[in-house]
């Protein structure tokens, strides 16, 4: 019997890379949770973009709510090839993301609850995202990627959360 809240895998980058992938995810739990702590390069920015099962098609969409230290705002993206986009960090700073992938093995579209956080002692954002992957397949892999390299020390942990029978 799986633990109720079980760490499945952790990746810590030893060198810069543009992505982290968790693959061969067992269909043992109810929800997946990803806690992601990216480190930015010294002069470029990184964010957290999420994909499932290697799907790079325009099968993702999201509604965003965020504050940037001055105002609260909301936006929407449809027909995207990722879920994410907020919580961008740069200048060697550290961000934090959580993603809850609800009912990841059910034969339904996958709804994702995302929590981006980035604070750079002057600039930054805090927000929430509701995303959708329009695919009823079981999630067997999760990829976090950015256009610029995540730096060494970037960590990502995948958890499984199992409901009562």
């Amino acid at each position, binding site marked *: 019997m799986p633990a109720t809240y079980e760490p499945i895998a*952790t990746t810590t980058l030893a060198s810069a890379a543009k992505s982290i992938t968790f693959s061969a995810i067992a269909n043992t739990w109810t929800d997946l949770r990803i806690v992601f702590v990216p480190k930015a390069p010294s002069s470029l920015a990184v964010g957290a973009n999420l994909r499932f099962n290697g799907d790079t098609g325009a099968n993702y969409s999201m509604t965003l*709510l965020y504050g940037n230290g001055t105002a*609260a705002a909301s936006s929407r993206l449809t027909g995207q090839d990722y879920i994410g986009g907020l919580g961008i960090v740069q200048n060697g700073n550290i961000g934090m993301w959580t993603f809850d992938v609800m009912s990841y093995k059910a*034969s339904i579209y996958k709804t994702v*609850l995302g929590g981006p956080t980035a604070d750079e002692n002057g600039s930054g954002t805090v927000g929430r995202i509701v995303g959708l992957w329009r695919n009823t397949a079981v999630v067997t892999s999760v990829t976090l990627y950015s256009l610029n390299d995540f730096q060494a020390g970037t960590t990502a942990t995948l958890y499984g959360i199992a409901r009562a029978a």
Partner: protein
Amino acid sequence: MSPLVAARAAAAARGYGWGLSAGGPSGGFEAIATVTAAGGETSLSFSSIPQNFVALQIRGIYRDNWGSASAVTMAVTFNSDTGSNYASHLLRGDGATATAAGYTGQNQIALWDFGIDNTVTSGTFAAGIVDIHDYASTSKATTLRCFAGSNDNSTSSNRRVTLSSGLWTPTAAVSSVQLKSVYTSFAAGTTFALYGIKGAA
């Protein structure tokens, strides 16, 4: 870089430290019960909730049988109390605008936008996570927070991302939770799972 951030980056993220020390029911994050709608129910409940945790979490997906395109909100009561003992606040993004509101003297807590109507593509559900801390206290009112919303790849302002807070003013321990459709009824497949979170010994 702060020592805390450096430690986290070097040691790998560990979430909130729940349930990591052991597997199965002996961990700090324990699955208590699950309710799944067969379809047509107007209320789903967790009852006889054990009182040996520090906090509760409800995680779920919700689709309503409401046949009009609409934002859908779910209601929650505690211990079957339907008196004017509840309040709620919300911070919402509808894809274009961020808004906030508050309500007092209500007969239920609104978990704003924790639902989706039945006009969207089959297999599309809203999702949400509700946290209730110190639910077993007999000297505190009960406060909850909820992060929920829905998306269907449309530009509808009914597809929202929302943070809610809720208050139940009696100081009784929470022994039951009622989740209610205030539209038509829960669609088949709507599921809520209750978890208990333990404190340190």
